[in-house]
């Protein structure tokens, strides 16, 4: 079953002179992990913001669980969409403790729920710290816990790996897979690094200059690339892997 449908979506920020997203069609299956891949400026973050209801679209329709969320004349507020989002800069509230950050989306502060989340993100004992007292990896996990605590149907993650070193990236990938299995949440992550997408996502959507150029299972896309962009990405990836292997072999 599709949890998210996007049809004929267009978005412009300059009254239609240039479109940052053009004729986008997407079908997202429930419970799967998706990666939205593209270069900087390809429209990835804008697409996320439209899905989350943070921006109105120009034309087209966004459906979530068969409910029309956005079109030319309608914009359902973000909190009524069942979406959790982790921003690239994490957007943790700097004046609130870890515990208050996590419980922010709950109607009432729920100690048990916060504790459950802290165990999940392996930050027990950090509940009274402030975001600036945490490492970047810990902050990232708090941001994920805060988005998860409201039990979202879809979790949007904007460049979750961008500020992390290789060790932290590996740990986060493992954590995200655990979360996806445990919460049965549809996960949608933005990345410009196709290696991150290959490591975690089941399905991929490639965006170039505001248009979807390929979408489907990651292995299918890479085994039979249809666009020059994906072919070049695959070529670069293979060469880099060969280079590393030759170094290791040497």
């Amino acid at each position, binding site marked *: 079953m599709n949890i998210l449908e996007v049809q004929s979506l267009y978005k412009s920020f300059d009254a239609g002179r240039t479109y940052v997203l053009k004729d986008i069609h997407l079908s997202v299956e429930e419970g799967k992990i998706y990666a939205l891949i593209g270069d900087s400026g390809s429209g990835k973050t804008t697409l996320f913001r439209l899905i989350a209801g943070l921006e109105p679209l120009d034309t087209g329709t966004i459906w979530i669980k068969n409910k029309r969320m956005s079109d030319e*004349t309608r*914009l359902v507020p*973000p909190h009524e969409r069942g979406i959790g989002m982790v921003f690239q800069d994490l957007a943790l509230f700097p004046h609130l403790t870890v515990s208050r950050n996590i419980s*922010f989306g709950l*109607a009432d502060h729920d100690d048990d729920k916060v504790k459950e989340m802290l165990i999940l993100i392996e930050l027990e004992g950090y509940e009274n710290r402030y975001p600036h007292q945490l490492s970047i990896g810990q902050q990232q996990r708090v941001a994920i816990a805060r988005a998860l605590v409201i039990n979202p149907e879809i979790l949007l993650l904007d460049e979750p790996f961008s500020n992390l070193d290789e060790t932290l990236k590996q740990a986060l990938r493992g954590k995200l897979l655990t979360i996806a299995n445990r919460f049965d949440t549809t996960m949608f992550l933005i990345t410009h690094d196709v290696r991150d997408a290959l490591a975690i996502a089941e399905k991929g959507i490639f965006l170039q200059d505001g248009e979807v150029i390929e979408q489907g299972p990651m292995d299918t896309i890479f085994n039979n690339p249809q666009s020059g962009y994906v072919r070049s990405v695959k070529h670069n990836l293979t060469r880099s892997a060969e280079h590393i292997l030759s170094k290791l072999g040497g």
Partner: protein
Amino acid sequence: MTGKWGVGKLFRRFRRDFSSWSAWTLLLGMIIGIPVFTIAVSLFNGPGQMWGHVTQHLLDDYLINTIFLIIGCSLLTLLFGVSSAWFVSEYDFPGRRHLEWILILPLAIPAYITAYAYKGLFGYLGSIPILSRQAGIPFQGIDLMNLPGLVFVLSLALYPYVYVSTRVAFLRQAGRLKEVSLLMGLKPHQYFFRVALPLARPAIAAGLMLVLMEVLNDYGAAHYYGVNTFTTGIFRSWFSLEDPQTAIYLSAILVTIIFALLWAEKWQRRKKSYSLTAQFSTGNHRIRARGKTKAGIAGIVLIPVLFGFILPLGQLIYWGVITWTRVLDAQFFQMVLHSFGIALISALVTTLAALMLVYMPSWNRLQGIKPFARSATMGYAIPGAIIAIGILIPTLAADKFLIDFMNEYFSINTGLIINGTIAVLVYAYMVRFLTVAYNPVEAASLKIGKHLPESSRLLGSSRPGTLRKIELPLLKTGLVSAVALVFVDVLKELPMTLILKPYQVNTLAVKAYGYASDEMVAEAALPSLCIIVTCAIFIWYLNKLTGT
């Protein structure tokens, strides 16, 4: 691509983008726009009876004096402001750290009070000529009660606007650019003229615009020195010639001059809005001044402080000491309370309006609402006398209607209900000083960014809820700065207060002006000192709070 747009669809889209916040923004913008709208509409009533007299005998004088003031004050404030900003940001010399913020202190003395003090300092019977003659130096004093004198006094009072913006610009550009220039063989003065000054030009121009806005707004100093300017002309037309239409026509010319200046500033800045990225800011390495250079720099930087703050303050303290027994009474303390109370209420109301104007437009998606909200903060560019007239005309009309209505239907003679109330005065301050509050609130809001409030919205908080729980705690510095800045401005404000204040209420500024007008300038010292001390404390606190 965008499909067909029927009227129905356009209406539904408008419904999507329009919210109650759009309505509140429009309402607030319209309330703030009443004075300007009134002046604009009143122009269609044609010139008043005295317009011919004014154009024949006075208009040339107003125009020439105003242009002389603009040019003279520009040159002097640039000289004082840019040179002191350069030396404190580039050189290390004894007392630099203290001078950095002491150079701002002349802002604590309203220009009209500096003008009073200078008459007491350099007039024939002034303190300096008397002290000189006692020391055997035959110094007869300097007559400053003329146009060049006014230029000198206004420049001393207002150069800190240029100093503050220029110093920030110099400090931001310091670092790698200077290192590169010095590596290429540029000497410090060559670096100043070829790199630092061109880069700081937009900031210098922005500071200069604030100076010119204040110069064109000034009434107290020009009136006291007997110089005819547009602002004194507006007062004369309204109160002496009793011709509001002529006052409105003069206001329109003055507003045209102001908008021409604003346009010129924007034009010169069109391709020169440099933004220096963090990579260039490697920290400032000041040149340690030695020997004669050290003394020379300290001397140059001390000149504006000495003439803009220490000398006038000394004269006022002297006057205060010899007059306090006559001035200090229960009424004085009541006046202090009135002044502080009105300033505080106005500062809170203005900051609240600024907060609403920063946030409400971003809470709805109606196109054009943000520029509309921004345009509502143009009051600072419009002289207080014009805003006062723009408020008097509709409020007098409303009062007349109410008096007639109450008389006809209830046979009650109510007198003026709206005019002469503190509410009207507070409203006028809000219109005039909205931008003073808007800028720090907007800057603080931009610093928060959009992701924090968006996270809050995604987690189920309403917009006001997000403002209360997330944004307000983070806006604290911006809000405190806004309240303090408006408080200081209201405390110093004269022309609008003179026109709109309630009859039985006196403020420190009005009292000081009253004494000076009645040839009791020494008695003006105590109310003036109250304003100066309060403003100096606020300026010191703001400097500490924001670091600029």
